[in-house]
């Protein structure tokens, strides 16, 4: 698969005018987003997610390194005709929803009947067609987010870059957006999605990258990332609970406990010697939240495993 979006060893430092102190937002940041995938971009606040997105959109310039979008350097204006972008906390001009979407569509080169048709379709996609004559200044935050999405898709882009697209949406609208993203993937479009909603990312993304302190600390398919290689889940029958640390009884009477990779063999032998029966031994599956907390140093996190990267 060709890369649609590439960040190549990018460093981004922010420095205030007349001040010596610099803040490093991205630190040797390297990432590739492939054609036709939904790529989830995770990280705590201040990890550098929005900076990376702003670099791709050429709102900011890298201090070092460079990036490519559809094979062209970031900042190539004509290439952005193939890109739809929704910023975090979207800010738009105050005019009717239809005129607003038309304005942004026209900025991307649409005109005439195509512009009119695409405007109606985009408003319909985000369920705002019935509000097309209403001024967006009177919209709720969720509606603003949806109109922001409409302006991002009006020109039928090949790549959608969405910074927190569902943060202000109710569950119903969130579901609709998720369905829309999946539909876009079916049509061969690429989606680069930054979100704090881990369940959403887990549901729709083909690959995810976790960013912390400006570096990618984990990259891969959700299933691969969530499967722990350090811990195994053992389910057995006919063994005493107190002989296995952390063991718990399941409703069906079986005993379940976690064993580290190093102690796995010894645990299995102990079950056998105690006359027990092994039902299953499988890699322990964490939730995305567990992984996120572990990688970003959240509560209960294990020591950071830093810049380990997994390839799919």
């Amino acid at each position, binding site marked *: 698969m060709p890369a649609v979006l590439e960040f190549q060893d990018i460093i981004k430092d922010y420095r205030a005018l007349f001040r010596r102190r610099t803040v490093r937002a991205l630190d040797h940041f390297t990432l590739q987003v492939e054609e036709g995938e939904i790529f989830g971009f995770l990280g705590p606040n201040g990890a550098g997610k929005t900076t990376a997105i702003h670099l791709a959109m050429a709102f900011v310039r890298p201090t070092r390194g460079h990036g490519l979008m559809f094979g062209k350097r970031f900042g190539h*204006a004509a290439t952005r005709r193939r890109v739809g972008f929704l910023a975090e906390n979207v800010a738009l001009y105050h005019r009717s929803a239809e005129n607003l979407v038309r*304005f942004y569509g026209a900025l991307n080169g649409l005109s005439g009947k195509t512009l009119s048709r695409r405007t109606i379709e985009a408003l319909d996609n985000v369920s705002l067609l019935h509000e097309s004559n209403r001024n967006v200044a009177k919209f709720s935050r969720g509606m603003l987010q949806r109109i922001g999405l409409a302006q991002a898709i009006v020109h039928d882009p090949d790549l959608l870059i969405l910074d927190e697209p569902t943060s202000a949406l109710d569950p119903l609208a969130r579901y609709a957006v998720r369905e829309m993203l999946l539909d876009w993937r079916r049509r061969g479009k690429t989606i680069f999605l930054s979100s704090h909603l881990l369940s959403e990312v887990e549901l729709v993304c083909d690959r995810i990258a976790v960013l912390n302190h400006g570096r990618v600390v984990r990259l891969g398919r959700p299933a691969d990332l969530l499967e722990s290689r350090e811990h195994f889940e053992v389910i057995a029958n006919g063994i005493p609970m107190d002989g296995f640390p952390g063991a718990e009884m399941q409703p069906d009477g079986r005993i379940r406990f976690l064993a580290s990779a190093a102690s796995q063999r010894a645990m299995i032998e102990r079950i056998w010697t105690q006359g027990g029966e092994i039902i299953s031994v499988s890699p322990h599956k964490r939730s995305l939240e567990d992984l996120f907390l572990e990688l970003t140093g959240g509560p209960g996190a294990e020591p950071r495993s830093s810049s380990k990267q997994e390839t799919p």
Partner: protein
Amino acid sequence: MKHLRLIAMIALNFVREQRWPILVLQLSVLGLAALGLLSDARDREDILLTFKQLGMYGVAFSVFFGGSAIYNERRSRRILAVLGKAITRRDYLSGLLLGVALSSALFTLMLGFTGTWILCPLGFSFFYLWHLMECVVAACVMSASVALFFSTHLNPWMSALFTGLTLGVPGALAFRFGGFWEYILPLYTLGRVFLNASYEHPGMSAGWAITVALLETVILWAAASWVFARIDVAVAVD
């Protein structure tokens, strides 16, 4: 053609966004009309003075428009949705400058028509009045381009300070020494022509000053485009 269409869209959008200040300016010109209707011919010097004052306000508003255009867009983050489209920063800046020029032109047209209606019957030369309007537009556009240049990388206060210095220092030097300095950002020269005009002696032609002002506007636009293409627009302005 695509570039021109984009520039025109940005310019019209700027005028639309600034419609209230523009309306206030237009209404201030109506004040001149009211003065003309309520006064008689003996007050004609007062009317001319008001006319000149309004012309100067137009230049001040152009500096305000030019200096705040980018800042407002960045502060509100509306710039992200626009620059996220297939538009170069140079085209965007050109659109803003054209927007300021259109705003100034609207004001100047209003001032010109009102001046024609009020001043010409009192004896002011029709042709010279419209020549003065050309001076006002040239001064507005040049001043706005200076302000726009500084606003690409400075906050509005610093931008206003440096705009004032950049326009004021050559003006002071032109006032003191004349000659070469009258060609550098000729706001002083244009202002002098405008302010010295009278019923009896309308004044001199400022054709060369208008030409120089417009040429220097192009240079400032090119410099502003170069700087603006190299700054981070998604961060707060220092």
